[in-house]
């Protein structure tokens, strides 16, 4: 049985300066109550690893607006002008990573691989300063793994032992991020008894999950 905690208690577990992997794609599938709780507690100096920074007033965009973020590793910030403005003003240090490379770097961090060998980015600015390697006569970028202190996961159902499932386009980065952090906190839409999610439907095994967020009051 997993510990089940309130959003405020979860936000208290996460210190300023932490590296957070946050699931979601334009806020779809993001752990929205966890994000709100981090904003409410006045979190500072966070490093956010995520696909994107959503938009002002939505998902990760709220953390940007609140000034809680000092660094981001993301693939896209085009729909959040605040993120772009803060980057240009030097308030947020941003590393832009191709989306497929980003998810593989997180997976590498989660499954114990030493890095990712990919042709994506070769011959572009993404190659600048990077290690490359030749395998079977082809050249690849060597992209290092990414891990977080915490992974904040949005999901559809969790059962009492922490098994998770996801819905439609709300999967996105969540199942991969659940592999790659020291502490994994899942925010399910509903929590169900053991057995409601059958073994073949489990997408994140409970052994990966450390805490569940209580149901919304």
């Amino acid at each position, binding site marked *: 049985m997993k510990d089940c905690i309130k959003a405020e208690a979860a936000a208290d577990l996460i210190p300023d300066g932490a590296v957070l992997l946050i699931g979601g*794609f334009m806020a779809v599938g993001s752990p929205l109550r966890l994000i709100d709780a981090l904003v409410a507690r006045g979190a500072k100096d966070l490093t956010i690893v995520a696909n994107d920074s959503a938009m002002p007033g939505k998902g990760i965009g709220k953390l940007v607006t609140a000034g809680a973020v000092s660094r981001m590793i993301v*693939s896209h910030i*085009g729909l959040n002008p605040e993120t772009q403005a803060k980057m240009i003003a030097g308030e947020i240090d941003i590393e832009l990573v191709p*989306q497929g490379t980003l998810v*593989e770097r997180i997976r590498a961090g989660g499954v114990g691989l030493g890095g990712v060998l990919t042709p994506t*980015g070769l*011959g572009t600015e993404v190659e600048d300063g990077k290690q490359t390697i030749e395998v079977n006569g082809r050249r690849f970028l060597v992209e290092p793994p990414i891990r977080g202190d915490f992974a904040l996961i949005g999901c559809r159902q969790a059962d009492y032992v922490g098994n998770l499932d996801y819905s439609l386009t709300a999967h996105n980065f969540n*199942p991969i991020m659940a592999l790659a952090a020291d502490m994994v906190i899942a925010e399910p839409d509903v929590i169900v008894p053991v057995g409601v999610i059958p073994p073949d439907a489990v997408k994140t095994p409970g052994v990966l999950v450390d805490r569940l967020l209580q149901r919304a009051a």
Partner: protein
Amino acid sequence: MMEAKERIARRVAREIKPGSLVNLGIGLPSMVANFVPADRGVFFQAENGVIGLGARPPEGMEDPHLTDAGGGFVTAVPGAASIDSAMSFGLIRGGHLDMTVLGGPQVDERGHLANWKVPGKMVPGMGGAMDLVTGAKRVVVAMQHAAKGSSKIVRECTLPLTAQRRIDLVVTDLAVIEPTDEGLVLRERAPGVTIDDVMAATEARLLVRGAVPEMPLD
């Protein structure tokens, strides 16, 4: 006369083979789906997580967990599959995607695309564009021939490249152009547009190899 964007979308739709897996970028490229008949067995991929992307849902029946890469509500067709980002980009990077349609500020004579950054002005990030251009079996660029009076088909990209891979086809409101070893070959012209009209509107050198028929737009 048909609106420019619709003309581009209709022409690109003819490039899509029955039964293929296709990714459409946001904006103009996403219009292409409107001109692909449902009976062709084409599956559209939204890189955020679904194979079998469908049209907008009926008002009031939107599912907040079913959106396209731009965050807009969509539906899923029968036979659709949910995928996470690792599978989504595994398909893109592993050569399983038959075609991608992308927009872009610039294509140059070597067939290079630049579409993710305008230094000093706009840095949206590459999102999935670098993976798509590097990994898709076929890359088609759908864009206006010119923006603010200047050609988007240039001698050499002045903006940062999206990939070192040569794209396969460019479809604009004026022409269909194929990048080749020799350079950009003019394949088709829009109805009522002459070869000279296209040349005049294009910064890059265009090669003419054989006939240059009008674009079919059925």
